Every structure is written in structure tokens, then in C-alpha cells.
């Protein structure tokens, strides 16, 4: 109990340090999520639309989940050297699987009759995807992004071992900041992860097709 009290005292004593590290943490997580979204979201949606590439969508996930981020960071050191991009790359690899897999299955499992009607009425492939499949699959797509952001925010902590910034720098450096500092920074990471999850849950609720709330 005393540790937690000390942690809060640490927060009160070092607001600038924590804010700065939180900012770095968000920058790193945000960059990784952004890149992962740009890469995985269109790919997953398009493959799902074509009902092709199940192997890719599922395979990437399994490989991605099996690779520990720490190992990737170690590999990455040889490519990117120490710093921001090495860590970002590792986190991108972590974020892609849930985004890609959920996007793929969200579209792939859309009601076939609804899609058949849309095509039969003369929608182009893109119109079918954007006007029918994506709105219907949106909750599932957002769920994938939510999982990815929690993963990334939590894992961004280990960036510190490869010269990255963020709250991890405090967590892995008990010698300098003491146990209270470590716990305080850990709490910050938790709050960030919960906040991201909460925001995406809210987005998902507002974006849910209104037919669900009406029935």
C-alpha cells in the first residue's frame, strides 16, 4: 500500500517528467498505430471484399502474434539502429495482426444476400465496400483497432531498452527513479491504455448502425 502512496507522491513531485514521458509514449504509439492502420486497414478491407487471401489475413496474424516484440526490437537494431524508428517498426508489426484480421473478417462475413443485392443493383465494387460492407462490418473493424491500440500502448514501454523514449524509460530505470517512480509510470501506461480502449468503445457505439439500437 505504501508503494502506491509513494507512487502518487512521485506523480505530484514530478508532473513535468511524467507529462513529457507520456507525450513521448503517445507519440511513439500514435506513429506505430497510424502506420499500421495505413498498411493493414485498406489491405484487410479489400481482401475481405474479394473473399481472397484468407491465408494472408490469418497467417500474418499468427506470425505477428508469435513474434515477441522484444525480439523484433533486437532484430530491428541491426536495420534501423537505436531509436524511434526501430521501436516504431516493432510496434507496427504488433499492431498489424488485429487490425488486418478483423478488417478482413468484418467484410468477408458480411451478409451475402445483402452484398448480392447491392451488386445486382449496379453498385461498383468500391461502392459495395464503402456503402454496404464497411458500415455493416464497422463494429468489428473498430474492435480490431481497439485491441491494436491497447497492445501498442502497453508494449511501447519496452522501447526504452533500445534507446526509445516514453514511460518505459522510467519503468526500466528503478535505480534512478525508485520503486515509486516505476509504479507511477506503470499507472500512467495503464491509464493511457484504458483511455484509448474507452475512446474506441465510444466511437464504436456512436458508429454502430442505428438499426441495432432501434430493434
Amino acid at each position, binding site marked *: 500500500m505504501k508503494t502506491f502512496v509513494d507512487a502518487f507522491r512521485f506523480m505530484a513531485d514530478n508532473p513535468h517528467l511524467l507529462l513529457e514521458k507520456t507525450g513521448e509514449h503517445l507519440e511513439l504509439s500514435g506513429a506505430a498505430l497510424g502506420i499500421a492502420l495505413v498498411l493493414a486497414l485498406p489491405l484487410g478491407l479489400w481482401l475481405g471484399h474479394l473473399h481472397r487471401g484468407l491465408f494472408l489475413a490469418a497467417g500474418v496474424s499468427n506470425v505477428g502474434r508469435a513474434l515477441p516484440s522484444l525480439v523484433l526490437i533486437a532484430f530491428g537494431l541491426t536495420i534501423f539502429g537505436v531509436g524511434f524508428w526501430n521501436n516504431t517498426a516493432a510496434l507496427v508489426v504488433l499492431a498489424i495482426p488485429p487490425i488486418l484480421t478483423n478488417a478482413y473478417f468484418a467484410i468477408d462475413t458480411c451478409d451475402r444476400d445483402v452484398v448480392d443485392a447491392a451488386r445486382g443493383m*449496379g453498385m461498383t465494387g468500391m461502392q459495395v465496400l464503402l456503402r454496404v460492407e464497411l458500415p455493416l462490418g464497422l463494429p468489428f473493424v473498430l474492435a480490431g483497432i481497439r485491441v491494436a491500440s491497447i497492445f501498442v500502448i502497453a508494449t511501447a514501454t519496452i522501447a526504452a531498452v533500445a534507446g526509445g523514449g516514453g514511460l518505459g524509460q522510467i519503468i526500466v530505470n528503478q535505480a534512478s527513479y525508485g520503486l515509486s517512480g516505476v509504479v507511477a509510470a506503470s499507472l500512467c501506461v495503464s491509464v493511457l491504455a484504458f483511455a484509448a480502449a474507452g475512446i474506441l468503445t465510444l466511437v464504436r457505439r456512436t458508429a454502430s448502425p442505428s*438499426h441495432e439500437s432501434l430493434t
Partner: protein
Amino acid sequence: MPGQAAELVFDEATKRYPGREGAAVDHLSLTVPAGEICVLVGPSGGGKTTALRLVNRLIELTSGDIRIDGTSVKAQNLVQLRRGIGYVIQQVGLFPHMTIEANIGTVPRLYGRPRSWIKTRSAELLELVGLDPSYAKRYPAQLSGGERQRVGLARALAGNPPLMLMDEPFGAIDPIVRTRLQDEFLRLQREVRKTVVFVTHDIDEAIKIGDRLAVIRTGGRLAQYDTPRAILEKPADDFVAEFIGPDRALKALSLHTLAELELGPPADGPTCGLEMTVRDALALLLEKKATVLAVTDEKGAVIGSITREELLA
């Protein structure tokens, strides 16, 4: 947007799937005159739906051709072709995330029609298919199966297509509502006069709905193409005879209504309307154990009578 009705020609239309023995649709040739309902009828899995989907190219022809008002479907832009053909399927396929109005407005929106135009048009169409205009703002999940299929029909009519493709549209609906929808569809067709290709495996529905029936046997081959009356009176072969059933003489009675018969002077007996089919009148007679029926006009006034002998003549 298109309009009126188009003539549809199947010209040796064939679909083969690689690696599968036999064709799904085999050299199908028939002409559907503009404004008529052609029912493709036959056993399940016989290639009826495939033949239908060859028209709007949801399935591509292997060989042969299909022409709408003389233009090959292959010569037309895929998206333009489909926008000009109304498409109704058994599971309706309404967009669950859109209001009824937005569903009906799908094709006009693809044509770039303004919102106000779509609003007016969908109100018109709701009325045409017998739904209250207040349905416009509801969602598909709030409607019954029968109501959804009415919306499906309205949605297919919204672009005023000269040709409608209907794939077992009433197949998933309970018998009572189905009968009502069939009656209303025929009433609607008298108003809009589209060329319709209608798929069903229900021979009674086919006889009721179709101006012409195309009986399709397994393997997608045409067994007989003619009016319901001609098919019932003279089935082309054993397959057709077996498919339409041993009671085909009885079925033929449902092609005529009392209005077509010469009525006797008004008499006492169970009453029936002029629009009743001879088959139903006979059933009523048997049920009531009567020998004569009193025939009424639309207002319910007795205007004549018909005897058992006259019905069977």
C-alpha cells in the same frame, strides 16, 4: 433513367463451370415479349437461378448470348446494365443500416438523383406496393418478412427498369401472405407492365403468375416454353407431365375466373365473387355440398349463378 418494357432474348445461352460435368444452363433459347411475365420453373438445383443471374451478369455466360431490346448484355457496361434491371431475391437483401427510404432510393442515388426527388419517389413506391408512407423512416429490422419483400419490390422498381429479375421472391413467406403478395404483384404488373423473369420451383405459383412458363429440367435444359394453359393441356414430355403433377386438369381450372363464364339467372346458394377462379369455385361447391353458387359483383350484389355442371363443362 430507363423506362417502359424491353424484350428479352436468350439465344443458346450456356453456362459451364470448369471441372464440373454437364452444363448448369444448356443452350437455353427463348424470347420473352416486352411487358410479359416469364416464369422459369423446374426442380431445385436445375439451373433456373443461374439462368436468371446470367441476365444481369452476376454470372457470366460461357457461350451463347442474351439480348435486351436487341443489345447483348455482353456489349454493355456491367454497372450500367445492372442499374437498368430490377433485381429481387428471396432473402430480399435490404441494407439493414439504411432506412426504408434510403433502401428504395439506392438506384436513383446511383443515378445521382437529388434527395428531394428520392423522397417523393419512395413515397410513391411505398404506396404502389401497399405500404404506408410512414414506413419511409423505419429500418428493415422493424418490418415483417412480407413487408420487407414489398420494400424489396419497391427498391427494384425505383430506377423504373424495363426488365425485372425476381428470384423466388415469395419463397420464404408464409402461404397466406404469399397469396396476397402474388395477387398484389399481378395487380402491380397490370399498372407498370414490366418485362419480368420470375424464378420459382412452385408450379402453382408459376401457373398463377406467368404469362408464359419455361419448364427447366435438371442440367439447365428447356423442356417446354409456352402459356400455362398450353403446358397444362399438352405437356411436351413425361418430365413436364410429371412435374406439373397428375392433377393438371384441376390446375387448368385455376386459369379461368367466373367472369369468363356465362352465368345463369340469380339463384340461392353459397356466394362467390366474379374474380374467383373456377378451381376455387368448385372447391367451395364441394365444401358446402351445394349444386349451385350465387355469383356476386364487386359490391356484393348477386348478379347470377353457376351450377356444378357448368363449372365442369
